[in-house]
C-alpha cells in the first residue's frame, strides 16, 4: 500500500495546502493510521480511505507553524542545466497552488481529489463522507471559482 499510494497521499497533502516538509509528516501519519485501520479498509477502496485520511490529517497540520527544514532536507535547488520543461512545470504547480489557495477548503479538496487524483464522484463522496450530490455540486462550484480566479489573474497580468 505504501509503495502504491505514497505519492498520491503526498500529492493530495501538498495540493490541499501543506508545505513540502509538513506534507511529508502528514503522509507518514496517514500510513500509520492506515496500518492500524487495515481491517476497516474495504478492498478496492484503499485510495478513498487514504484520501479521506489525508484530508483529515491535513486539518490540524495547516495550523501548525512551518517547520524549519534542515539544509540537508531542503529541496534541491533547480540546477541551471535542468531542462526548461521541468522548470516550467514547477512554475505551473506554484501557480496552481496559488489559485487553489484562493478557494474555500471544501471546494479545493474536492477539486484536488477529482481533477488531480482522478477519484470518481462516488469515491469523493465516500472519502469526504458527504452525499454524491454534494460532491458533484462542490466540484461544479470549485470549477467555476477556479475559472474566476484564473480570469482575475489574467486580468492582472495585462
Amino acid at each position, binding site marked *: 500500500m*505504501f509503495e502504491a499510494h505514497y505519492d498520491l497521499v503526498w500529492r493530495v497533502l501538498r495540493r490541499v495546502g501543506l508545505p513540502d516538509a509538513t506534507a511529508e509528516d502528514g503522509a507518514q501519519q496517514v500510513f500509520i493510521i492506515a496500518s492500524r485501520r487495515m481491517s476497516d479498509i474495504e*478492498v478496492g477502496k484503499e485510495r478513498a480511505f487514504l484520501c479521506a485520511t489525508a484530508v483529515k490529517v491535513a486539518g490540524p497540520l495547516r495550523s501548525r507553524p512551518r517547520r524549519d527544514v534542515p539544509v540537508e532536507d531542503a529541496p534541491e535547488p533547480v540546477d541551471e542545466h535542468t531542462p526548461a520543461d521541468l522548470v516550467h512545470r514547477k512554475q505551473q504547480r506554484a501557480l496552481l497552488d496559488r489559485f487553489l489557495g484562493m478557494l474555500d477548503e471544501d471546494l479545493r479538496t474536492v477539486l484536488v481529489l477529482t481533477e488531480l487524483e482522478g477519484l470518481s464522484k462516488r469515491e469523493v463522496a465516500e472519502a469526504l463522507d458527504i452525499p454524491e450530490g454534494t460532491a458533484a455540486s462542490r466540484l461544479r462550484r470549485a470549477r467555476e471559482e477556479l475559472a474566476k480566479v484564473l480570469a482575475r489573474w489574467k486580468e492582472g497580468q495585462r
Partner: protein
Amino acid sequence: MSDELPPLGPELEGLFDAAKSDVPTAAAKAKARAMLGLPTPAVIPPSTPTPAVSTPATVSSGLGMTAVKGVLVLGLLGGAYVVGMRVGDSRAREELAALPPKTVVVEKIVQVPVPAEPAVVPPPVAEVVDAGAPALVKPVKKPEADQPDDLMAELVFVDGARKALASKDATAALASLAAYDAKFPRGTMRTDAQLLKLEALLLAGKRSDAEALGKKVTTTTDSELVRERVKRLLHAK
C-alpha cells in the same frame, strides 16, 4: 466526474497536468519508509514479513524511539501486510491471509538471532535511498523527531483505553482517555477517543454522561459514519 460540469479549459488542465507529475523526493519517501519500519523495495521480497524480524535489532541498535515505536506498531498490527501491498492491494491481502497468526510472528521475533547486518532495521533517516534514486541524500546528523512522534504518543493513550475496554475496565479506559484529552485537545485521534469514551461511560453505567457526549459528538462532527456509530453505541447498551 459529470458531463454537465463547466469545462476546466486548456490553461487549467495544463496546470493540473503539471501537478500530476509532482512526486515527493526519493529522500522523503525513503525517510517515510524508515519511519514506518518498512524495507526498501530492492532489499526485501514483498511477501517476507520482515519488519517484525527487525524489531529486536532496532531496539538493540539504540535508534530513536520514533522508529522503534513505528516498527512495533506496524509489526504487531499489520506491518507485514503493508509491505506486501506493494505488488497490489488485493494480492497483498491474500498474502496476509497466508501469513502465520500475528502473535506467532511476534514470538518468533524475540528468538530470531539478530543478523550482523540487519537488512530492514530502519537506518538513520537519510541513509535510506531507493536503488537507482538520484543522490539526493546527504550524511545524517540525527534522526528527526517530529509530528509522527505526537501521533505515536496519541496512540499510546488511545490503545490503552481500547485495551482497558476490551478487558471491561471502564475506570482505566476513562483515565487513559482523560489523560489523552488533557495532552491532545486537538489530536488526530480525537474522534476515536471520544467514541471510546462514550463506550467507557456506558460500560461504567454513566448513561446520561454518555448521551451528553454522544450529543456533543454528533453535533460537532461532519461525518455521517461517526453519527451512525454514536447512535449504534447508545442503542446497543
